[in-house]
């Protein structure tokens, strides 16, 4: 079974049911399959060698869903791209994975000239807009033409779905998800059909998803948690209700009520914004069955407030990472109240061990690193063997998260080995932000770290030492950062110090900065 078999199977079993709703548009599984079939046939006919990378830069939409599967059905490896990235980062990813194709949404046309200028390997571009304005000799295709006149490869009843047994899902690369690396440059996480199929079916099982479920999707599909919503709901024949307007929470709540969604999935900042800045606690949301939360630790106080606001709903606190495709653990909702602070127990088919630095399992109650073992563990990092060898040993994934297990096997995270800040669900490398800040000639030293934030879960704070004779204020620094980094990487808090506290080794002591540093 390959990942696209999930869509083919759903098209056979749920042909007339609604698969995706996006504002006023809705599409059935049958029509979704037809669009998928036409675009996959078209891309296959381009005759790129199997396994070539095709990047997908597209906002959440009906098109994203079928294009995601179509690229894979055509035999290529799909590379979803973060739509908030600046052109230089997009070009970095295209070059890093030597993408031959770029499938991109016209909304991002402002990035295109700069991206194409820097991208060395692209042979074709497929978009929903005419690309006449691009002065470039690469082949360009218009999606509308393919949908109107393209050929399908047959009815879902007749096609060969390449096996139906999830256990037979091949160990073959099918997707690369880029994620912030500790070095500052994005790392391509290589996922196989087996990684994605196994994790999707495990998630469907513990969330008890069926064709009666529908989820409001506010998380982007290029983010592995958003991708998991896409895959699980296609797999169970459920419905994806897309709404990209989370910046206006009331609008999202209205959509949830109007579409009678049964599920809401968010990162900590989504829940904090809903609880603090909207009418969420007063809404009845009578059709809603469950919440899921992942993408970083949510403060116990916020979990309690969510339980108090919705005592009848199932709340799934979950843990994972892109490298685990992504889900590694969940807390059964009925145990949450007594286990607040836990990330729960392993998802079906996955084993979690707590190990010390020498790779030995520690007794329950002792702290160590979470190690993930199972069919969901990534194939590796694209072209980064050194980074890969640091986290992948003997097929086991060393998560970088420090935790302990209680006597019932529930895991509690106590810290992180790596310097990654989780800002509203985005992983930000402290090192990357420091490097960009230090490009400003006024700055002598910079230390970047996460601090608790009511809305974002964790916010970026920068402690800065200026060079003698230079002046710089917070606004100027933020503006400088904006010209170099995505919005979520801009330090929200900045303090200017005479010097940074350091260990004897000379390394900056960020614990002192984060805990007792002057507040601004």
């Amino acid at each position, binding site marked *: 079974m390959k990942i696209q078999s999930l869509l083919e199977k759903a098209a056979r079993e749920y042909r007339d049911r609604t698969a995706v709703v996006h504002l006023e548009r809705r599409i059935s599984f049958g029509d979704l399959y037809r669009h998928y079939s036409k675009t996959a046939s078209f891309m296959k006919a381009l005759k790129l060698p199997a396994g070539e990378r095709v990047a997908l830069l597209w*906002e959440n939409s009906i098109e994203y869903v079928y294009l995601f599967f179509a690229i894979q059905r055509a035999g290529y490896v799909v590379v979803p791209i973060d*739509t*908030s990235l*600046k052109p230089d980062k997009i070009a970095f990813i295209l070059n890093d994975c030597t993408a031959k194709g770029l499938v991109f949404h016209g*909304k*991002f046309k*402002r990035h295109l000239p700069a991206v194409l200028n820097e991208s060395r390997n692209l042979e074709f571009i497929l978009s929903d807009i005419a690309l006449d304005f691009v002065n470039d000799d690469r082949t360009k295709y218009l999606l509308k033409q393919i949908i109107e006149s393209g050929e399908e490869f047959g009815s879902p009843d007749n096609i060969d779905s390449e096996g139906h047994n999830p256990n037979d899902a091949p160990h073959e690369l099918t997707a690369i998800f880029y994620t912030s690396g500790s070095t500052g440059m994005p790392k391509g996480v290589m996922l196989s059909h087996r990684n994605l199929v196994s994790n999707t079916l495990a998630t469907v099982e513990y969330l008890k998803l069926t064709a009666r479920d529908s989820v409001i999707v506010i998380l982007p599909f290029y983010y592995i948690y958003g991708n998991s919503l896409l895959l699980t709901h296609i797999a169970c024949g459920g419905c994806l209700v897309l709404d*990209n*307007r*989370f*910046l*206006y*929470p*009331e*609008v999202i709540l209205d959509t949830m009520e109007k579409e009678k969604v049964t599920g809401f999935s968010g990162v900590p900042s989504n829940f904090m*914004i809903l609880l603090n*800045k*909207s*009418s969420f606690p007063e809404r009845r949301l009578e059709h809603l069955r469950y919440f899921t939360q992942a993408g970083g630790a949510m403060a116990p106080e916020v979990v309690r407030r969510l339980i108090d606001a919705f005592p009848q709903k199932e709340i799934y606190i979950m843990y994972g990472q892109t490298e685990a495709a992504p889900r590694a653990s969940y807390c059964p909702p009925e145990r949450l109240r007594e286990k607040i602070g836990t990330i729960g127990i392993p998802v079906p088919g996955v084993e979690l061990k707590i190990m010390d630095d020498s790779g030995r399992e520690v007794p329950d109650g002792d702290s160590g690193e979470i190690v993930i073992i199972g069919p969901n563990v990534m194939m590796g990092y694209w072209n980064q063997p050194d980074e890969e060898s640091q986290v992948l040993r003997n097929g086991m994934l060393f998560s970088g998260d420090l935790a302990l297990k209680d006597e019932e096997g529930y895991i509690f995270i106590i810290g992180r080995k790596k310097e990654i800040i989780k800002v*509203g669900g985005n992983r930000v490398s402290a090192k990357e932000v420091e490097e960009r800040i230090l490009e400003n000639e006024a700055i002598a030293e910079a230390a970047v770290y996460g601090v608790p934030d009511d*809305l*974002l879960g964790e916010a970026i704070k920068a402690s800065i030492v200026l060079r003698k004779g230079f002046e710089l204020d917070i606004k100027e620094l933020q*503006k400088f950062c*904006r*010209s170099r980094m995505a*919005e*979520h990487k801009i330090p929200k808090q900045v303090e200017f110090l005479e010097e940074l506290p350091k260990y004897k080794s000379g390394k900056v002591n960020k614990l002192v900065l984060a805990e007792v540093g002057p507040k601004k």
Partner: protein
Amino acid sequence: MAVDQDTIKKDLREFIVDNFMVGSENETLNDDDSFMEKGIVDSTGVLELTSFVEEKYEFSIDDEEMLPENLDSIDNLVKFISRKMG
């Protein structure tokens, strides 16, 4: 505090271009362009935008006023600010 609509429009445009459009100076932003549609403002950005409006025009924006019809274009913002100050 009486401020005419042209001044509000000018201040808003300056704030948005300075804060959200660095590197996209060649792109045009019409007064009725949706910030969401153009991908100019994300969820962090909208919080910054509301903080700017609250500070500059000295009123507070209620949670139920956080709606695209109030905040999602320069035109909508001008109408909203004028209404709040009127």
